[in-house]
């Protein structure tokens, strides 16, 4: 006999019982002990069919292949750069993966990227020990120039982007600011100073209220734009999958 003891969108803490019996399957941030399923983090329950998972409300960013992130150059190496990924692990960007242009042997790499520069890059490989390789050889990946960088909780990134990038589109249109969201929680804003400030406040507001529903309405009210039906983006992507489109300009 199996039964579920929580409801969808319930807030649970580590060690909370979610369900009893073998009919349910433990998903993300849950674990099974004996015949019971428990939560492993502070988060919100989401039930999809027989799978129980918990959406973390905070927590570290776990690097994933294909994620677009914003990183900071911390060191110049023999043939590349070491970058800080806002995780416990630094990543290496090889010259080959950084630019299409020919780089002479022995050329000063700081001509391309200096220590302290931010870059928009993509994770190309992650090992079991969380060693990270990144690349900039894809459209939209570049050095960060101008604007400002802000840091948010990486678990709130999908909300900042919104379903089919609706939220970010809303902010862009209301403030005229270019926004690039990295999956590791770094956000690059570039526009007029007033616009940047407004966009920054909006993003912080979203971060604070990420676990609430009806967020888009609140945000459009805050930005002073009428609520509208969002023209869906071409691909029918899930909320989280759409995160990748966050940097479309």
């Amino acid at each position: 006999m199996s039964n579920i003891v929580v409801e969808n969108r319930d807030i649970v803490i580590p060690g909370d019982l979610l369900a009893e019996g073998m009919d349910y399957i433990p998903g993300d941030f849950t674990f099974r002990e004996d015949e019971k399923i428990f939560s492993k983090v502070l988060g919100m329950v989401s039930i999809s069919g027989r799978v129980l998972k918990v959406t973390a409300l905070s927590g570290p960013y776990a690097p994933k292949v294909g994620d677009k992130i914003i990183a900071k150059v911390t060191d110049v190496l023999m043939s590349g750069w070491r970058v800080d990924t806002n995780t416990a692990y630094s990543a290496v960007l090889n010259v080959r993966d950084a630019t299409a242009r020919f780089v002479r042997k022995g050329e000063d790499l700081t001509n391309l990227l200096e220590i302290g520069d931010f870059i928009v890059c993509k994770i190309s490989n992650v090992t079991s020990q969380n060693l990270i390789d990144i690349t900039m050889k894809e459209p939209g990946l570049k050095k960060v120039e101008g604007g400002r960088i802000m840091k948010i909780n990486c678990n709130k990134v999908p909300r900042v982007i919104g379903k089919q990038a609706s939220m970010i589109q809303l902010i862009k249109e209301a403030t005229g600011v270019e926004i690039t969201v990295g999956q590791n929680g770094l956000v690059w804003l570039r526009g007029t100073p007033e616009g940047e400030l407004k966009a920054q406040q909006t993003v912080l507001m979203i971060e604070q209220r990420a676990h609430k529903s009806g967020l888009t309405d609140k945000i459009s009210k805050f930005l002073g734009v009428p609520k509208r039906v969002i023209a869906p983006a071409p691909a029918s992507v899930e909320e989280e999958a759409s995160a990748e489109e966050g940097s479309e300009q």
Partner: protein
Amino acid sequence: MAYTKRLDGRKVNELREMSAKVGVVPNADGSAEFRTGKTWAIAAVYGPREVLPRFMANPKKGFVRCQYTMMPFSGTGERIRPGRSRRAQEIGMVMDKALEPVVDLTAFPNSVVDIFVELPQTDAGTRCAAITAASMALADAGIPMRDMVCSVSVGTVDGTVVADLTYDEEAYDAPVSDIPVAMTARTKEITLLQMDGHVKKEELNKALELAKEVMGKVYEVQKKALKAKFMEVSQ
């Protein structure tokens, strides 16, 4: 004369008034505050982050590292010398061991989760308050944990088994024992057990039973505080 009435009028199994709050240090990845009576602990969690010094890194999984500090003015007026004392170092270590069984950092090899606990005011039971606060701060930081850790001190005063001793009770002019206990909330496994003073075997058994009985109250406070963080932003 036996110790029949407690100095502050509590029942023998009654804890001091507790309160807790999560997210008190905005700069940290997770933080919490826990008060029991006059004892007040603030915990801040940073990480997982790179391990320094490097040789401490464990390539199999991440680990937790606690630092316990009593603030210079936290005692009875005598200035406590800042910096790490032998006592603070020991408490830091027992806190590591109390929390380590529940945190699951297998996904973060070669990393460390730093926990800093500061005590602005103390009135006995500081390591228990520190562990209780640290456990909440870890949960707030989103660190995967299999359980919460709750902690409370029990002991005997002149042969009477009591829970959550104050400093006055620890200094009572009779044989006194002080037994800090930390326990996982769900599985009721003991993760910290220390003892100071004189205690009989039967008294110890009775004290541990009492600890198990009152631990649930600490857990309720933790649970309420963690959930409250996400309720208050409602409007």
